[in-house]
């Protein structure tokens, strides 16, 4: 059987890879991909804790499904914003999206 620690280390590494994508990429779509990786890492963590510490109860699964729904909503709205910004400014580089700058 797999130790719980392996799942936690795996999730931490996946989260940090996603965080690097969010902080370093210039393309706004690539930033959204990094966010998806981070949300996946959170789900791995939640499911691992649920399976090892809470298994017969369902609370952990409810958490994971809410995170899944929030991730779907976030991806839809984020991509719509990116496409809207692309239409208005003809760019999707994150540093060029400075319409709110005074």
């Amino acid at each position: 059987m797999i130790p719980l620690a392996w799942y936690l280390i795996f999730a931490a590494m996946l989260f940090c890879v996603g965080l690097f994508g969010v902080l370093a990429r210039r393309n706004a779509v690539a930033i959204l991909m990094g966010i998806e990786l981070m949300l996946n890492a959170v789900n791995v963590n939640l499911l691992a804790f649920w399976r090892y510490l809470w298994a017969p109860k369902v609370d952990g699964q409810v958490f994971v499904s809410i995170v899944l729904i929030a991730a779907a909503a976030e991806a839809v709205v984020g991509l719509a914003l990116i496409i809207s910004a692309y239409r208005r400014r003809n760019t999707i580089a994150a540093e060029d999206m400075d319409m709110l700058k005074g």
Partner: protein
Amino acid sequence: MSALQIIFLVIGALTLASAVMVVTARKIMHAALWLVLALGGVAAVFATLEASFFAVMQVVVYIGAIAILIIFAVMLTRKVMEDTGPQVNRSWPWALLACLGVLAGLVYLLSNWGGFLTAARAIPEGGENLVQFGQALTSPSGFVVPFEVASILLVAALVGAIYVAGEPREK
């Protein structure tokens, strides 16, 4: 080392490698395809946790919907951001440093947690109870309020996405 552990290590290494390719690939389309592989690896990790429902949900929602949506967004915004030129911003070494710092901090916190190594006990019996899960999502004494709020969130996201991404109106 049991067969399941070896399978987990292979899946984990594959998932992390494709995640690294997602954030470092020069061509954004390649990054999107690597993202599909990484999400599939996470689905396999869910399967090793005996969470079959969420393994299927991962494939349906992430690979089936979100990855396709991202690929569409990549194709719609292709022209402006050519795959030449730098794909990371100037301060990427600081980002790398911050990520390694976060990773070190997480591992330090986890190694200080008492259950980190002792939790390697036998997995409790009777992992997934889908009937109970479904009832908990719809019973008033369970999680019906968060569930309904999540549905409202999805509808709001749908309407908002249509409004935001629609044709800009002429003033």
